[in-house]
């Protein structure tokens, strides 16, 4: 049961600095939405606003309305941890917990959220690892440290860890930027499979990747350094890459800017 995300007037700050200004967009369930744009345009900030990770940084805050299936996640008194359980996140650099084995990494979220019982955990771990296309590679060494895997495997381990808690939305912040081309391909395959079950939002610097994996694409940009990022254009990926409505989008996609 994937969910629809609706942002209206989302504005995010780092202290006094306004990072994104009044972003409004609707992200459809069971689809892949790519956020693209030049560095510093606020696409990662917007992504982190969706599961309230932005406010983890000191002095960071968000204004505006962000709803997930009509529930305002920024409403006072909302339990932040529940929001993040519902909206999982995969980071730029693979970040498995170094003191834990592969198995413990996958079930870390379940355990910390109170799931007990060996059988239940093992079942969940296998399901998540299969879901992340990693099961066949690690099934014989589940007790080994997660840090011993290759970068691509580590990133899929992090995806397994994320989907093990059964979120409804998965956010990915440049998940392939630290990986080699083959691992990147493996992750992209995985993303196309995951969209059957989850709403996926992915930030990427790689326009081919956006074109390959996403259904819809949002282009963010800034006027100049120090200005807040704005949503310039948001449409079907097909249209953005072949016939964008905005001149700026076209310039960026054809490499004249950014």
């Amino acid at each position, binding site marked *: 049961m994937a969910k629809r995300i609706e942002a209206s007037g989302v504005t995010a700050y780092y202290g006094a600095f306004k990072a994104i200004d009044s972003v409004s967009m609707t992200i459809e369930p069971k689809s892949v939405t790519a956020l693209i744009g030049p560095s510093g345009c606020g696409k990662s900030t917007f992504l982190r606003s969706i*599961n309230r990770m932005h406010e983890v940084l000191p002095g960071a805050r968000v204004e505006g309305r962000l709803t997930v299936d009509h529930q305002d996640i920024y409403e006072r008194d909302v339990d932040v941890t529940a929001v993040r359980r519902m909206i999982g*996140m995969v980071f730029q650099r693979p970040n498995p*917990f170094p003191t834990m084995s592969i198995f413990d990494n996958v079930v870390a979220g379940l355990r910390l959220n109170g799931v007990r019982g060996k059988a239940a955990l093992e079942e969940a771990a296998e399901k998540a690892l299969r879901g992340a296309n990693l099961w066949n590679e690690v099934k014989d060494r589940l007790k080994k440290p997660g840090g011993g895997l290759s970068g691509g495997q580590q990133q899929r381990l992090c995806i397994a860890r994320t989907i093990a808690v059964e979120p409804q939305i998965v956010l990915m912040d440049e998940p392939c930027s630290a990986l080699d081309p083959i691992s990147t391909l493996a992750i992209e395959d995985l993303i196309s499979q995951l969209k059957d079950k989850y709403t996926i939002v992915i930030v990427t610097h790689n326009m081919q990747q956006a074109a390959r994996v996403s259904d819809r694409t949002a282009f963010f940009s800034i006027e100049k350094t120090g200005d807040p990022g704005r949503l310039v254009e948001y449409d079907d990926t097909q249209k953005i890459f072949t016939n964008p409505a905005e001149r700026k989008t076209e310039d960026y996609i054809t490499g004249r800017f950014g």
Partner: protein
Amino acid sequence: MMVSLTARRLPRFAPLAIGAGAVAVAAGLSFGLGLGGPVMTGILAALLFVAALFGTAWRVEGSRAARNRVASALIYGAFVLAVIPLVSVMFTVVDKGWARLDGTFFGTSMNNISAFDAHGGAYHAIIGTLEQVGIAVLITVPLGILGAVYIVEYGRGKLASWIRFFVDVMTGIPSIVAGLFILAFWVMVVSPMFSADGAPTLSGFAASLALSVLMLPTVVRSTEEMLRLVPNELREGSYALGIPKWKTITKIVLPTAGPGIVTGVMLAIARAAGETAPVMLVAGVNSAIAFNPFESQSSLSYYVFDQATDSSKYAEPRAWAGALTLVAIVLTLTVVAKLLARRSKLSR
């Protein structure tokens, strides 16, 4: 004018030859003219060596190279100079401590040992050290780790930066001041409330409190450093799973920093075990075996001081044996702690 890329250099054996010459001349002057003994020879030889090296290098290689050579000589010299006393300390401790390091030393106390008795031991003192340091660990480890968690994970604004600053300042509080503080606070104000006759009580526990004052900043500081080394991606990875902050800290961040924290605690223990002054002020003096930390106790470091200032001819070997035991305990702790730190997954 053509620029030459090769410069005139002193032959490689030159410093060695100059050194040998300097020693010979210095020995001649010291012993021949009666200026002094071997120590004088060493000082004189060093001065002569530096002067002669500078002179020859100046003539052959020029002033910049000469300065470079002298700087190198002084830097190597500093190292040699420091090694002498430090090696002497370690050698003396082992050499003199060995004599009384026997079963009696580890098995008996100083109870009813008069100035004319050759035996007597440090069992009571070792018990005292173990108990006092143990209690201090029980007090400082939870307090120190929680304090560091506050500084790194929760602290914002003025309060946090004040705490950080004063943790650093507190590291420099002299141990005798910590002892006086516990004397003024625990022994003179609090302990009379617990004693039957309302009189102040000196006790091993009071020494533990004083040691805690000394250990706390060390534990906070080292834990803080370790927590800062835990990559932020781990915290974010955990938050993104919907795990609350306090669970992220206790289940993810602290275990990751674990080995480093243990190292810090062990270094703090090593320092506390070697402290004499606070124990001397507040533990009371007890030459008998006392397991109850709420009575007066001795400690190994105080035992060394006590025996060293005793006029009996049998006391000095006991002092050295105590010093050797103390050094062995402290250095073992330090070595293990440092090795543990090297194996830690976190690195700068």
